[in-house]
């Protein structure tokens, strides 16, 4: 499960931020200036579409790293 989610999230980061993160490497929003508020939404929408899930407004606002998205997405898929 986590591997599938990790792959989907990494693909979103690759397409939107032009960042091909190593699957084991986290990406922090506060350390990535190109992760602006528009790209933030693009990442959210891309992950939602790829995995067929929907984040809440609160989750969307709280997301601050690649690993955070993976954890939330896994929780959605397991719930």
């Amino acid at each position, binding site marked *: 499960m986590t591997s599938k989610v990790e792959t989907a999230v990494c693909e979103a980061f690759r397409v939107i931020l032009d960042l091909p993160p190593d699957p084991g490497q986290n990406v922090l929003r506060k350390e990535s200036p*190109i992760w602006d508020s*528009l*790209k933030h*939404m693009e990442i*959210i929408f891309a992950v939602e579409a790829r995995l067929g899930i929907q984040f809440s*407004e609160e989750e*969307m*606002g709280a997301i601050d790293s690649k690993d955070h998205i993976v954890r939330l997405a896994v929780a959605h898929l397991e719930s």
Partner: protein
Amino acid sequence: MNHDIFLYGFAFGLRPVELADAEYMIEIRTKPELTEFLPPLCTDPEAQRAYLTDYFERDGDYYFVVERISNNHLEGNIAVYDVDTEKNCAEWGRWILDVGSRAAIEGAWLIYRVAFEILELEFVYCRTNVENTRTLSFHDSCGLDRDQILPNFIELNGKLCDAVEHRLTREKWPSVDADLRAKSELVSKVLSRGA
């Protein structure tokens, strides 16, 4: 300028700043999380009201409050100003959104709609501290062009900083409009999930 422009999108709207907004404008402009790249603001409400009274008399200056439509929550401020009637252009800025606000994309889209659809300008520009990399990225992401670097343009905490000037022209507006409109609508759908 005491204007009467109200513009509403999918989840957020712009309304004219009023004298009664003085305290709110101080409140949002004094939040440490939001003011890293902003000059210090006088926190005296009377001084802010005097500033607004002066603003109401100034032509070519359109100052707005960004509101969430569903609950009239105040999200921040934004403005188009320094309208040049010869070149038919203006600067936009004074942009600040509260911590956690989701109004960035739609706020930008609405201010461009004011510029191109209501004021019928030929181009608008915004100037950003070169160290404010996330805001620079946002303007890039919106499809604006980096027009020029303005050396030592911004004074912040006694230090002169370069500014990057982004420009959006009427020619390019339709593609930016379509993109920001679509993304604003998507964000509004997320916001309505919990409604």
